[in-house]
């Protein structure tokens, strides 16, 4: 079929003038980045990149907003294959194993040269590094990282006769307060935990609170059928069915913030990345708290890491390192955190004066950081898309009553076993 390809190629050469053809510069970087939670984040990223280019006139950065995490990974990998590769990208932290399997990225340990840079690798919160390291190497640098926090409507707490400064600390309290907050006429629910979009992520919080993580740290074994995991799913199901403080069925990730802002739920679990959007739009007094505990407190971290691709020249790698160091510096991280609600990624960021003042004035900005102490990696394995889908389906099957938590998770575990066996 070679001649055909040539013919098609020839036909399309005339059309090539429409292709994206960026102008040449000293070192040029193409970077994809996703945005998964609210607010005009693209503008913030663009302005940070512009600042970087002013500081480094010899480097041009072409930052492309690629949609959600899934789109960003598809686009970045597709670009590698199509000969217009990106050099660095912000991608989902859980894409790690997929990227390693595709031999697409380099480990930062192999790029850093100076002691200063090695120290830089150790300057981030350890919980945020968990998703970026495997096999003793660091592959991803945290950037837009989040945890799950509990947003609650203080006015609704007051109206229900609850102390607005004492949000639920345990699962039992969540149920108990939830019952008081749920109105008979259906105009207000006690709590909502989203179960579309990223159900496995919310579930990672519940299981860790129940004392069990979802996978090992080499990404080749999952623990979906562990009794503590099954119990966690049962609890989630009970919230909507037995206790009826949450709507039964699945709850939409994208519209949940709107539901909370409309006062349709007194409590929501959501990404810290929503903090600024909630702060800007809430017409009532709201609070932010760590997630409640069962055996212990817990949340997975979430969000995107910086990666550097293998298909790069040494100059491009140096330039990419410069960019990443710039974007993750304490000042930038502090600015980013204040503007978005994402976690500041290093202790140094929280010593930055602007952020110190901000936290003083708005203490909820520190909840996510304080919670990092109890945080773990989010679900990430080899064949992560399929493994994740198996778990997502199991969660939704259980929540909608199509299967018991035990059945659903047993099946998900069987799928994961079959997929992961070859990687052990």
């Amino acid at each position, binding site marked *: 079929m070679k001649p055909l*390809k040539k013919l*098609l*190629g020839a036909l*399309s050469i005339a*059309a*090539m003038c*429409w*292709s*994206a053809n960026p102008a040449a510069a000293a070192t040029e970087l193409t970077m*994809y980045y996703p*945005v*998964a*939670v*609210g*607010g*005009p*984040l*693209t*503008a913030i990223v663009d302005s940070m990149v512009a600042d970087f280019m002013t500081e480094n006139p010899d480097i041009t950065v072409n930052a*492309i*907003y*690629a*949609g*959600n*995490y899934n*789109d960003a990974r598809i*686009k970045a990998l*597709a*670009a590698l*294959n*199509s*000969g*217009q590769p990106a050099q660095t990208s912000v991608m989902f932290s859980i894409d790690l194993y997929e990227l390693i399997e595709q031999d697409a990225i380099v480990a930062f340990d192999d790029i850093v040269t100076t002691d200063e840079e090695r120290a830089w690798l150790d300057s981030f919160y350890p919980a945020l590094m968990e998703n970026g390291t495997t096999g003793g190497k660091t592959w991803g640098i945290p950037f837009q990282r989040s945890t799950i926090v509990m947003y609650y409507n203080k006015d609704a707490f007051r109206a229900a006769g609850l102390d607005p400064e004492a949000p639920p600390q345990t699962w039992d309290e969540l149920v108990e307060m939830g019952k008081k907050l749920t109105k008979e006429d259906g105009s207000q629910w006690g709590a909502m935990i989203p179960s579309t*979009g990223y159900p496995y992520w919310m579930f990672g919080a519940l299981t860790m609170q129940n004392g069990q993580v979802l996978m090992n740290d080499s990404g080749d074994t999952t623990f979906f059928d562990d009794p503590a995991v099954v119990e966690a799913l049962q609890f989630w199901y009970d919230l909507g069915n037995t206790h009826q403080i949450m709507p039964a069925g699945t709850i*939409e*990730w*994208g*519209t*949940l*913030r*709107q539901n909370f802002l*409309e006062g349709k739920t007194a409590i929501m679990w959501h990404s810290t990345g*929503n903090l600024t*959007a909630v702060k800007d*739009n809430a*017409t009532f007094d709201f609070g932010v708290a760590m997630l409640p505990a069962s055996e212990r407190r817990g949340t997975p971290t979430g969000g995107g890491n910086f990666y550097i691709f293998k298909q790069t020249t040494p100059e491009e790698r140096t330039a990419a390192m410069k960019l990443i160091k710039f974007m993750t510096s304490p000042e930038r991280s502090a600015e980013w955190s204040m503007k978005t609600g994402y976690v500041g990624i290093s202790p140094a960021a929280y010593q930055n004066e602007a952020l110190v003042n901000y936290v003083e004035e708005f203490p909820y900005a520190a909840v996510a950081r304080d919670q990092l102490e109890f945080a773990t990696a989010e679900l990430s394995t080899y064949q992560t898309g399929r493994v994740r889908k198996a778990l997502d389906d199991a969660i939704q099957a259980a929540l909608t009553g199509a299967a018991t938590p035990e059945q659903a998770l047993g099946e998900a575990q069987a799928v994961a076993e079959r997929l992961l066996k070859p990687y052990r």
Partner: protein
Amino acid sequence: MKRDPISWLGNALETGAAWLLAIVWIAPLLYALWAAFHPGEYAVRFDLFAPLTLENFAHALERAPFPRYAFNTFILVTSLLSAQLVLCTLAAYAFARFEFKGSSIAFGLVLVQLMITPEILIVENYAILADLGLVDTIAGIGLPYMASAFGIFLLRQAFKSTPRELEEAARLEGCGVLGVLWRVYVPLARPTYLAYGLVSISHHWNNFLWPLVVTNSVATRPLTVGLGVFGAPESGVNWSVISAATLLSVAPLLIAFLLFQRQFVQSFMRAGIK
């Protein structure tokens, strides 16, 4: 003519049904208008006295390069349509007036594309496009659709209904094969061209899946993909801004449709698409 009460009642019922259906059918657009022109807090609350605002449009324009997306879409639909018209005209002419060897088999093979449209073969078509180095180009979005079986089929019908005598007259005046096509067949098939053009434009203006897969960057992304990326529920749905963005991106097509509604329907009629 005297109207009896029963037929009057029937008439009224039908009118009522038509209007009811119409209201249901236009409701999403009405909602988009509501949400786009009112502040965010009224997106889910309906209040006659809600203040009007243009801020949502400003936000939408600020957060995503919609003018650029619109430009990409415009380039896409116009260049694609031009290519389609040329390719389909030639092929349809071949099928209508040259009973060449293998023409019926070839026509059957063309019709296969009516069923197996390029998006059905999304995986391999993407691979082929990558082999050609056309990923993330506007040409790449259009290429698989350029030889349109639907277009060939329609034009073949139109050409076949053209009287042979006209062709012979043109030949006597010294027209060649292409001259006959250009002087006789193309002008007479104008309604078909118009109808096909409108279908093609509205289809590709709204096409999403294939451009989503093919485009990576702002420079090539058409409006639909831009909207999909912009309105992805992951970022938390903000209906006011999304509605504003939606209106921005459908406005050209909507206005064109309002202006040319009559011609649109008539060209369908004259083209004998039935």
